[in-house]
C-alpha cells in the first residue's frame, strides 16, 4: 500500500469498502493525492461518490491515452477543500471502447468527453450530445489513435473528404 495523503485517509478505505471489486489503489503520482483504477462499468458511481462524499466538486480533465494494446481514459478531479487532485483511470479495449458518461455529475465534462470521442474514439454512454469537436462531422478517423498514420497531405486530403 503506497503512502497516503493524510486528508484522504478516511476517504480511500471508504471508497475501497464501497466498491471492493471495482476500485484499485495505484501508486501515487506526482501532484496527485491518489490514483485509483476503476472498472469501466462503475465509473459513474465512483465519480458520484467522490463528488458527494469526497468533495471532489470540479472535474478538471477527461482525456485518454492509446497504449496500443488498450485504451485508457483519465479523469482528474479537483477538491477545493483538500486543495488537490485525484486521478481516476479506466482501462478499455481498443475495439469499440465504451464507458459511462460523467456529464450528469459534472456538466463541465461535456466537451472533454466529446474531445476524447473525437480524438480517440471512446464512446461515452449516456452523454447528451456526443458529437465531434475538432474534426468535422462525417470524418471517419480518430487521429490520436496510434494506428492513425501521419500520411502525406494529398492522401490525408482524401481521408478528410467528408462532403
Amino acid at each position, binding site marked *: 500500500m503506497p503512502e497516503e495523503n493524510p486528508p484522504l485517509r478516511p476517504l480511500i478505505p471508504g471508497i475501497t469498502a464501497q466498491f471492493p471489486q471495482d476500485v484499485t489503489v495505484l501508486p501515487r503520482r506526482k501532484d496527485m493525492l491518489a490514483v485509483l483504477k476503476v472498472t469501466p462499468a462503475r465509473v459513474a458511481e465512483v465519480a458520484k461518490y467522490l463528488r458527494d462524499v469526497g468533495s471532489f466538486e470540479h472535474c478538471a480533465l477527461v482525456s485518454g491515452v492509446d497504449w496500443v494494446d488498450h485504451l485508457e481514459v483519465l479523469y482528474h478531479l479537483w477538491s477545493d477543500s483538500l486543495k488537490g487532485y485525484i486521478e481516476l483511470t479506466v482501462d478499455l479495449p481498443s475495439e469499440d471502447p465504451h464507458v459511462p458518461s460523467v456529464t450528469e455529475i459534472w456538466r463541465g465534462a461535456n466537451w472533454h468527453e466529446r474531445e476524447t470521442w473525437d480524438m480517440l474514439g471512446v464512446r461515452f454512454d449516456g452523454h447528451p450530445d456526443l458529437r465531434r469537436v*475538432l474534426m*468535422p462531422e462525417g470524418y471517419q*478517423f480518430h487521429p490520436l489513435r496510434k494506428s492513425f498514420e501521419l500520411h502525406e*497531405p494529398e492522401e*490525408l*486530403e482524401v481521408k*478528410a473528404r*467528408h462532403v
Partner: protein
Amino acid sequence: MSDSETSGTSKIITHVREADAPEPEVPFAEIEIVQSKEFIPVVKENLTGMIQRGMEAAVKPVFNWAGRNSLFPLHWGLACCAIEFAAGFGARWDGERFGVVPRSSPRQCDLLIVNGTVTWKLSHKLITLWEQMPEPKWAIAMGNCATGGGPFRTAYSVVPGVDKLVPIDVYIAGCPPRPEAMLDGILRLERLIRERRG
C-alpha cells in the same frame, strides 16, 4: 465647376482609354465634358445606353477599370496572418489608398483574402462565404498556411492549401507576409484583372 475638377475628370478618363480601350470610336468625349457633380449619373446613363445599343465590348473596359481599382476584400481573420492583414489597413500601410476597403459582409465583397490556417472543420464555412460573394470575384491565398498548409502541412486537421477549396488567383509567400507583400499581392491581382479585361 472649377477647372481643377474638369481636368481631374478628364485625366481619369484618358487613363482608361490609354490602358484598356483600344476602340477609338468609343464616345468618351461625352463623358469628358460633364460637370463633376453629375459625373456618376451621366456615366451611368451613357453606359446603360451603350449596353442597350449593343456596345458591351466597349463598356467592359470601364467596368474592368472601376472594378480593379475598388477591390473590396472580406474582413475576416483566421490566424496570425490576419494580424498583418489588419496592419495593412491601419495608418502605417493604409491599404485604402488603393481603393481596397475591407467589408464585413460577403455580399459586398469581390475579393477573398484567405489570411491564415484553414482547418477541415472550417472548410465548409470558407466555401459558403466564397459562394455568397457576387461575381466577378477573386481570391488571394495569403501566407504559407493558405498557400500549402505551412508549418501544419502534415497535421491531420489542416487543409494543405486552400486551392483545394476555392480557385486562387494570387499566392503570397511568407509566414507571415509583411503588409507590403500583401499590398503587392493585391496590386498584382489588379494587374491580372487588367490583363484579363473581363
